């Protein structure tokens, strides 16, 4: 019996190649898109799951409460980690992880290592990063030890044995010191929130260059992770933290008016669930939800196509069903036959899906910005899941058509007085509306995402980010010389020194500032440390007072400039009133000499926050070089040439300010481009379905078309007649999709501090796109049918 079913199924597929092709390709494209999204979602959910003790590791984070508000940070102070381990028996081990940006050198081989870190010695015992050489208890024990990843070791030592060799390392704190390679680890997998290609020992700081680090209660820097004993209740531990902090830092908190609270975040949930930023390695559970829904929608659209085409084509199978029933087939047997056919089609689509996925995966990895899968066969369980999904779709999509077809009355179908009935037509209409609702919502979503991205990129930021090269000198002794010589280059317009530039991290400084009531107000405030030229070079506007000036000798030690937001925080009703207010910050005291107009020194996802600027030379590790807009390439080459002459021992470390600023939107851009691509796929699959459905509908109306033409209908009138019915469905879909998309996208936009509003033209554009695409799809068949000689269509009846 089954052989017979397969035979029939195969011959039917061959017989109607175009429609089988539409059916199979629609499903295959849907499955491929759905599968890729599921791989992506699965990858996102797999973050940090490879650590055996992962469920007992917690990240320690802190809230800092000052009189002006609460700041939620993703780090505690440096002292928390050693003290937690010492004072709580529940804590097996604690590890601090500090991300570093290092200039590394081995003889003539020099690189800037942006993904370097310093970690406590229990790092390799707590986390399951594979150590290929070296003892995990020992590799980070001694100061000046470094563990390299396989790739990093190869970069510096080629095929030579790296263990025991030395590297020269330099940053703000480490002044070109020698580190010994004590271990080689496997490259850290992509799905890890901890990313490092070299790890130096934290003892380098605690036992050598920063001996106070273990008791630095006021320095908030390293990420801190603790491993708890099994069956430890993290909430109960958390409850003990206030007393712990009071005991250790109570006096300090009171004195500084800065109250700290510590919390624990389950390590394996940090990536997707933590609201506290992780920089680049920051995932978003909402994106996972959105893409899961998109995957389900795309699969749904593909299934709808299948159901629509199969039921529409059921007229062709009616005779066969009638005959089978007459000669003894029972309804369940027929239903099994048609579900079986559906599964066969799905299995063909499954095979095409595997090929398509294998082809598309590298591009998808690029689009997603990470390697979500090395290859389709790298994890056979994924193929198995795809197979199960395929079979499920085969059964689900096949059940309805099977039920409809197997219900045909042989008396009717063999007599030829057969029609699929109004119920079937209504269902098909509902399904087409569903497909287009989803497609239009996705198009609308794409338009809104892109408009928001465009808005953020084109928004007036309040500073000039064009044609600026930023060099990271790590406060090199040659910094001054480099800056002076840069100014002599013909294409260089100006240079300035700074600790931060817009779009990069800045220091948060605990400060006391005199407020409008002439009281000292304690605040944790964003701080830039800049030189005399910074404000003018970045085009920042001074609203009151003045900028730093060489004519005032005290400016370098006793002057502060703040932004408008800072004056508002201090309660001043106008910028002018803040001039002369007293400040104390990081050992400096003096007066506010100027107020800047607010500028976006962070992404537009965030509100502008209060900012201070002072001149603290030892913090200014960056040189911002403003160059002429022409011949940028040549200018960069001359800057590099100069760098190599002045700082020969360090790799040229530079970036363009505009690129670096826009990089902040990378996650959103990826979200946008993924969304865009899936919207295109959704509309493509919907149109494939509409193409097939229109063809069938027009085929069934060929006699009507013939009669109308004989009676004098023009080609245009026939096309209009045939297109009208389908286009009505698109209009209904538009009416349904618009409020849904508006609601969802408004929710998405709420994430941005600076956002567009959803506007009427977006709806018009999305609706027009869907309408035109649908019209083009239908027109192909409609024009073909209307151009057919009526004699042919009337004869075929």
């Amino acid at each position, binding site marked *: *019996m089954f052989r*017979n079913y397969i*035979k*029939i199924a195969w*011959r*039917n597929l061959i*017989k109607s190649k175009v429609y089988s092709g539409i059916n199979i390709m629609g499903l295959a494209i849907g499955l491929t898109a759905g599968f890729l999204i599921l791989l992506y979602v699965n990858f996102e959910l797999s973050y940090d799951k490879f650590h055996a003790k992962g469920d007992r590791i917690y990240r320690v984070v802190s809230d800092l409460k000052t009189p002006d508000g609460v700041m939620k940070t993703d780090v505690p102070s440096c002292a928390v980690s050693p003290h937690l381990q010492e004072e709580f028996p529940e804590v097996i081990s604690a590890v601090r992880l500090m991300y570093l940006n290092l200039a590394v050198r081995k003889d003539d081989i020099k690189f800037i290592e942006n993904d370097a870190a310093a970690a406590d010695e229990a790092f390799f015992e707590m986390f399951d990063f594979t150590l290929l050489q070296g003892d995990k208890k020992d590799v980070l024990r001694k100061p000046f030890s470094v563990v390299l990843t396989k790739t990093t070791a190869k970069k510096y030592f080629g095929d030579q044995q790296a263990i025991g060799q030395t590297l020269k390392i330099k940053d703000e704190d480490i002044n070109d010191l020698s580190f010994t390679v004590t271990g080689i680890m496997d490259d850290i997998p992509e799905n890890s929130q901890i990313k490092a290609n070299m790890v130096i020992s934290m003892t380098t700081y605690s036992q050598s260059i920063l001996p106070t680090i273990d008791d630095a209660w006021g320095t908030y820097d390293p990420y801190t992770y603790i491993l708890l004993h099994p069956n430890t209740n993290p909430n109960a531990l958390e409850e003990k933290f206030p007393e712990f902090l009071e005991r250790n830092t109570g006096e300090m908190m009171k004195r500084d008016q800065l109250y700290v609270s510590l919390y624990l975040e389950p390590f394996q949930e940090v990536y997707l669930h933590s609201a506290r930023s992780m920089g680049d390695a920051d995932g978003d559970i909402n994106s996972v939800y959105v893409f899961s829904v998109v995957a389900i929608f795309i699969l749904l659209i593909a299934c709808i196509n299948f159901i629509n085409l199969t039921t529409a084509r059921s007229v062709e199978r009616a*005779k*066969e069903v*009638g*005959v*089978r*029933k*007459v*000669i*003894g*087939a*029972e*309804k369940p*047997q027929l239903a099994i036959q048609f579900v079986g056919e559906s599964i066969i089609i799905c299995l063909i689509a499954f095979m095409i899906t595997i090929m398509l996925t294998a082809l598309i995966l590298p591009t998808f990895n690029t689009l997603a910005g990470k390697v979500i899968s090395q290859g389709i066969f790298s994890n056979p369980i994924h193929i198995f899941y795809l197979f199960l999904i395929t079979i499920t779709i085969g059964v689900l999509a096949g059940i309805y058509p099977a039920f409809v077809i197997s219900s045909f*009355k*042989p*008396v009717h179908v*063999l*007599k030829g007085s057969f029609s699929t009935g109004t119920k079937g037509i209504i269902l098909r209409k509902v399904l087409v509306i569903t497909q287009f609702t989803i497609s239009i919502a996705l198009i609308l979503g794409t338009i809104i995402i892109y408009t928001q991205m465009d808005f953020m990129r084109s928004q007036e930021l309040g500073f000039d980010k064009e044609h600026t090269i930023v060099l990271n000198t790590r406060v090199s002794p040659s910094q001054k010389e480099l800056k002076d010589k840069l100014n002599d280059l013909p294409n260089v317009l100006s240079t300035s020194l700074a600790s931060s530039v817009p779009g990069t991290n800045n220091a948060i400084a605990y400060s006391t500032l005199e407020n409008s009531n002439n009281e000292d107000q304690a605040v944790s405030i964003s701080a830039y440390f800049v030189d005399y030229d910074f404000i003018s070079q970045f085009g920042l506007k001074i609203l009151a007072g003045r900028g730093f000036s060489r004519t005032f000798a005290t400016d370098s030690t006793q002057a502060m400039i703040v932004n408008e937001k800072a004056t508002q925080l201090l309660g001043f009703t106008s910028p002018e009133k803040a001039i002369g207010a007293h400040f104390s910050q990081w050992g400096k005291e003096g007066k506010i000499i100027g107020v800047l107009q607010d500028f976006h020194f962070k992404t537009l996802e965030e509100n502008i926050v209060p900012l201070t600027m002072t001149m603290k030379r030892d913090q200014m590790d960056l040189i911002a070089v403003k160059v002429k807009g022409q011949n940028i390439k040549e200018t960069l080459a001359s800057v590099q040439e100069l760098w190599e002459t002045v700082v020969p021992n360090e790799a040229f470390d530079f970036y363009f300010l505009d690129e670096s600023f826009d990089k902040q939107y990378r996650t959103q851009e990826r979200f946008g481009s993924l969304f865009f691509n899936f919207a295109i796929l959704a509309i493509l699959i919907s149109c494939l379905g509409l193409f097939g459905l229109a063809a069938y509908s027009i085929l069934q109306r060929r006699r009507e078309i013939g009669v109308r033409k004989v009676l004098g209908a023009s080609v245009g009138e026939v096309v209009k007649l045939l297109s009208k019915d389908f286009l009505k469905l698109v209009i209904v879909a538009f009416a349904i999709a618009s409020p849904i998309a508006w609601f969802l996208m408004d929710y998405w936009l709420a994430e941005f501090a600076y956002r567009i509003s959803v506007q009427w033209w977006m709806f018009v554009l999305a609706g027009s796109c869907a309408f035109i695409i649908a019209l083009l799809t239908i027109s192909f068949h409609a024009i073909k049918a209307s151009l057919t000689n009526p004699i042919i269509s009337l004869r075929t009846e």
Partner: protein
Amino acid sequence: MIQIQNLKKSFRTEEVETLALNSVNLKVETGEFVAIMGPSGCGKSTLLNIIGMLDNPTDGAYFFNGEEVGGLKENQRTKIRKGNLGFVFQSFNLIDELTVYENVELPLIYLNMKKSERQQKVKEVLERMKIAHREKHFPQQLSGGQQQRVAIARAVVTNAKLILADEPTGNLDSKNGIEVMNLLTELNQEGTTIIMVTHSDRDSHYAHRVINLFDGQIVTESQNKPFEVNAQ
């Protein structure tokens, strides 16, 4: 074999109710060859469909081999139909996607017969219908006469006791028509009961008895002389 009492069948559309059969009484004995005649729309095919258990009557009783089958549900009717009844249609109704062999084999598959047994039966019946040489062909590759021979082979391959033929020569030229009628007569002579709807006077002469329907009622009934096979 068949006893029909006061049988009625009406079709209802949204506004009109049409009475297709009105108080039909009919008895058909095993081994009989009955022709049903009448003008278009008189209810011939409706009666044949009810006798073939493809449709249920609206009213009245229908006994098949002594069992009341008029009110049975579709799946119950299918079970009785399977193996007992064979159908031959004017438009042959072969499945285009199956070969001659596979078309004839199909009823045996639904009877869950073993493959070897099926093979033997199909071969036998194809030989008998003189179509064995075309067993691998698809219906579209055959002439009308050949297609109808395949349809008859399919109807008899299960050793059906009753064959219902709905204008079996309607789509054939006279030569092929006669061949088909000869085949049916042969089957009847071997004991198969045949009920045939026809418009053709010539074909009706092959039957033992001719029933004339008009506006859903049997208006006349006449006996024919026994007909010789191969008569021209």
